[in-house]
Structures are given as structure tokens and as C-alpha cells.
């Protein structure tokens, strides 16, 4: 019961924050709402017995992605200010998004999904995750590929951002 209340509070918080991100006219406010939304989702990860994912969510999303977008909005201050006057509500977009959401929610409710987790988290599940990431029979290849991807991306971003 307590967990359901916590879930509802932070789910509504994250949802309202997400809606504010796409509707608030000021870009700087939208960045702060984005951070709030990520924070609310991080609390839900704690509720899912995944404190590691909650920490990663705070570090990468709230601390990385949102801050990076905030820096972008400061660097492009003029562009952001110009865009504020052009916030438009789009009925077609809202109809598309709402109908697809209703379809997806209906499908979710129709499916036979588990009411409760099938087992408790095993002890040391984080150690299991770490071992799987460097295990050649596990996820070593995707892990290395994502490292190469990030390296290529850094070089590409430097190239794009270079003065010329």
C-alpha cells in the first residue's frame, strides 16, 4: 500500500514535469522540468529495488543529459529566446500522441502481466551485472561496441563544433 502511494505520487510528478517540458514557453524552465522528470523516474527505480539504476539515472540523465541541454540553451541563448515566441500547441500532434497512448494503455491492461515480481532480487545482483558486462559469453561485445561508439561520437562532436 505504502509503495503504491509512493509510486502514484512520483509517477504523477514525473508525468506533470514531462508535460511541462513540452508545453512551458521558456526553454530554461523546460530544462528544470526535465530534471524534475528524471528525478521522479529515479525514485521509481528505487521502488523497483534497483538503486544502481537510480544512481545512474541521476548521474547520466539529471547530471549529464539535462545539464548538457541546459548548457546548450545558454550557448544558444538568442535562439532559445526567439523560439519562446513560437511555442505552438499542435492539435494533430496531441491527437496522435493521445490516441497512441490510449491504444498502448489498453494493450497493457489486456496483457496477462505479473502483479508482483516473480522472485526477490538475488544478493549481489550488481556484481552479476558487472560480471556479465565483461564476460565473453555475456555482453562483452555490446559493451566494447558502445565504448567505440562513444569515442567516435566524441570525435564527431568535436569536428562538428570546431570553428572553421
Amino acid at each position: 500500500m505504502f509503495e503504491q502511494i509512493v509510486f502514484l505520487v512520483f509517477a504523477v510528478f514525473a508525468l506533470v514535469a514531462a508535460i511541462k517540458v513540452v508545453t512551458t514557453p521558456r526553454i530554461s524552465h523546460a530544462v528544470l522540468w526535465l530534471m524534475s522528470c528524471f528525478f521522479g523516474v529515479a525514485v521509481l527505480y528505487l521502488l523497483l529495488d534497483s538503486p544502481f539504476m537510480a544512481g545512474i539515472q541521476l548521474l547520466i540523465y539529471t547530471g549529464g543529459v539535462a545539464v548538457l541541454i541546459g548548457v546548450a540553451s545558454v550557448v544558444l541563448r538568442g535562439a532559445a529566446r526567439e523560439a519562446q515566441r513560437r511555442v505552438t500547441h499542435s492539435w494533430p500532434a496531441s491527437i496522435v500522441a493521445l490516441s497512441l497512448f490510449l491504444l498502448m494503455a489498453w494493450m497493457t491492461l489486456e496483457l496477462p502481466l505479473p502483479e508482483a515480481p516473480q522472485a526477490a532480487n538475488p544478493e549481489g545482483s550488481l556484481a552479476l551485472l558487472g560480471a556479465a558486462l565483461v564476460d565473453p559469453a555475456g555482453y562483452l561485445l555490446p559493451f566494447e561496441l558502445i565504448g567505440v561508439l562513444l569515442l567516435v561520437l566524441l570525435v564527431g562532436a568535436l569536428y562538428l563544433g570546431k570553428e572553421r
Partner: protein
Amino acid sequence: MPIASVPLSWYLILGAALFWVGLYGLLASRALIRTLMSIALMLNAVVLNLVAFARFVEPARTAGKTFALIVYAIAAAQAALGLALLIAVRRPHSTVAVEGTDVLNRAPRVVDEGKR
């Protein structure tokens, strides 16, 4: 460790709601920065689904969380590359009035003007 008593479908519905809010932002927004935020929202909803499934369906295995970590890396990549692209698109107009904003509607033309 307590067993979470929140049904899986609640997490999935919240994930769907966050995802479609992000899609609405992507479709309706005129500002390039806000489309970046919308994409981050959508990726975040995907990660929420992955973590929820990992917890409910296979707590003893690691596939779900591994995929979630990879989506995190993609999200960081998307934000970094998006910032670089924003700056690259904006630069040709740094001296004139801010026309690089609603690039979403006419990105090819703006970029071509910069090359000339």
C-alpha cells in the same frame, strides 16, 4: 529486500505516457532544443520499461539492466551530438538575426546557406 507491491502494468502505462508526451513534444515543438529534450524523455521512458521488466520478469538475470545501460550510453551520445549539431546549425547565423531556431522546418536550406 522487500518485494515491490506495485503491479508491472502501472510502470508500463507510465512509460507509455512519458513516451507519448515526448512524441508530442517532438511533433509540436518548433525549437530544436526542445526536440532534444523530447527525445531524452522518450529514451527515459524506454529505460523505465526495461528496468521494470528486468525487475519483474527476470530478477536473477542481467539482460534487462544491460540493455538499460546501453540505452543510457545512447542517450548521452544523443545529447552530446545534439548539442554539437545545434551549434553547427546556428553558426552561419551567429551575426544575423536568429533564424536558426525553427530549423526543424527548413534544416536543409539553412545548412546549405552556411556552406556557400
